[in-house]
């Protein structure tokens, strides 16, 4: 008997440790509750996204919760459902849905309960905020194709305009992976034959996998590799470390996307040619700010144009040339200037 209790206690402890980030708000709160939901806190992008939300909640003096899906749509939806019912619909949720179809369920649940939602990155193409006024406040994303094209051009320039590149892709079925690959291919096509894609391999966003594939490429193409393109910074760093293992870090330009700390210091060390810095601090904070404005009646979202409902944020291309300026920039922004950093309506 005691063995069973000990066993349950161990499981409970394990669960609390892995998922226990969301501090439960008390049911008596009459304040509007603010919440952020995303895949996990184990990657810098989402950790910063949550931090952005927390900062806004602190500034607004409202209770704040973090929900983590752990890559499980069912868990994500169940947590959001529980939160909506616990707060009686008096809640704003800034959510990066685990999978595109989840967005529809989340919006419908919120609409039924009078809650408000802002979505990030993933949603079905035919689900629009203006069809669900005022519950579905807005959808924010970053242009995968456009920014990928920009960073690919940075790579081509660092290669001196010609030569072969090897490309590491994300998980083949992910929307950002597909868009970033398209952007890269467009940029290469526009270089008009001077640049050739030697090989494309998906490394599933994974550093170690990228390391192994890069090693094999060094055998297969050797000095023909004039540049390395990676769909995210983790894979770029994996490829860079494979080059370092051969004493060639810095000789072959590498670019990535996401703007992680590791990529930033590689750029400073002259080992990477560039990355694209998203702005998760802004999407985390501004998503909640916009949502809160609608929930408290400060903003009549139904009267706003479509370009204010589905919009791209600003991805900043960081290179050795501008990294000093980038690091010195003022990262703060005005919570009430909702669309200052928008770069236009999302195109499908």
């Amino acid at each position, binding site marked *: 008997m005691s063995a069973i209790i000990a066993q349950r206690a161990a499981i409970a402890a*394990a669960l609390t440790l892995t998922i226990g980030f969301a501090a439960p708000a008390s049911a008596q709160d009459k304040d509007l509750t603010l919440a952020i939901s995303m895949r996990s*806190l*184990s990657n810098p992008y989402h950790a910063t996204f949550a931090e952005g939300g927390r900062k806004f909640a602190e500034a607004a003096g409202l209770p704040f919760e973090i929900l983590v899906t752990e890559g499980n749509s069912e868990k994500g939806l169940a947590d959001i459902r529980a939160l909506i019912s616990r707060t009686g619909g008096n809640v704003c949720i800034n959510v990066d849905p685990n999978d595109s179809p989840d967005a529809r369920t989340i919006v419908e649940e919120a609409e039924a309960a009078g809650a408000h939602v802002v979505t990030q990155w993933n949603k079905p193409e035919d689900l629009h905020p203006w069809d669900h006024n005022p519950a579905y406040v807005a959808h924010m994303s970053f242009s995968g194709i456009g920014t990928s094209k920009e960073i690919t051009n940075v790579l081509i320039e660092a290669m001196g305009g010609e030569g072969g590149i090897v490309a590491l892709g994300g998980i083949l079925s992910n929307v950002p992976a597909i868009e970033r690959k398209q952007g890269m291919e467009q940029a290469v096509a526009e270089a008009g034959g001077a640049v050739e894609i030697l090989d494309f391999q998906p490394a599933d966003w994974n550093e*170690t996998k990228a390391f192994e594939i890069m090693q094999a490429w060094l*055998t*297969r193409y050797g000095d023909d590799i004039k540049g390395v393109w990676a769909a995210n910074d983790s894979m770029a760093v994996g490829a860079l470390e494979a080059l370092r293992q051969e004493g060639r870090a810095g000789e072959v330009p590498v670019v990535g996307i996401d703007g992680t700390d590791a990529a930033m210091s590689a750029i400073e060390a002259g080992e990477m040619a560039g990355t694209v810095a998203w702005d998760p601090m802004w999407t985390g904070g501004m998503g909640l700010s916009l949502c809160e404005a609608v929930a408290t009646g400060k903003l009549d979202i139904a009267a706003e144009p479509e370009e204010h409902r589905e919009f791209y944020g600003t991805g900043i291309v960081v290179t050795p040339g501008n990294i000093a300026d980038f690091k010195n920039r003022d990262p703060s922004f005005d919570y009430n200037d909702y669309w200052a950093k928008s770069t236009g309506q999302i195109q499908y």
Partner: protein
Amino acid sequence: MKLRAFAPIAVLVLLCLMIAVFSPNFLSVSNAIRILNAAAIPMVLVMGATFVILMGSIDLSVEGVVSLTAVVTASLVQNNLTSADLGYWAVPIAMLAGGAIGAVNGATHVLMRIPSFMATLGIGFVCLGISTAALGGFPVRIADREFRNITLGRTFDIPHGVYIALAAVIVAYIIQQRTRLGRWVYAIGTDETTARQSGVPVERTRILVFALAGIFSGLAGALAAAQLGQGHGLIASGRLFTTVTAVVVGGTALSGGVGSVLNSVVGVLIVVVLTNGMVLMGVPPFVQQGVQGLLIIVAVSLALDRRLLSVVK
């Protein structure tokens, strides 16, 4: 019957020949070094995993232990978060930490009578949770270039990680062949009841073997941190699959009692050569997984005389 023991080696040789036909570069010295280098961390991991599997258990905490010990290692050498500067001493500490987690694995499994599958899965999640929570999702980056030489440095043009992996293999082989622990592992894996009746301390052996696997995982964590220059919660993703596959492809039976650490050496090489070879041969990405799956089944079916197994589960 004896011939079958060489089946994994035959698979490895055939695989190499096949790849070499399509891509002559495969046989170059520099590629051989790259393959050995890619095999170093999986090699250290399978040394521990082999003992656990020989015993008829499984250790699913590999990714959790590797990521946590990689984070421990990265935080103990010069880095961007803490003021520690222990240099090479971080390695034995990571191994101790891994061994301690392994002992917890074993104790949870034995004392609470939870199947090793569940016990190690749970502990693995706890470790991943700790490494994520401790860092808030951010990596610890290693600033100590000297420390990174344990994998990046070369002697006779071979990366140091390869020598460390070789040392791990030798240690594991000695434990398997020359110690009572090694003999007990086989006895428990073959028939636990008989082993118990003939005086094998089954519980103690199980806990010791899980602790041993943890020590190897801790070493792998230190190597992973040195190789990638950082430690974070996701650093080990994908390692568990490679580890278990390599052990099984090498000819060690999941049911326990049959196999050897040397089999696993061949198993790791098969898995690593396969990954390397597919890129060299230019196999389209979406076909790669299929080919990998098929080859694994072929290798496993050749390695063991399945008619001798009384139960397959």
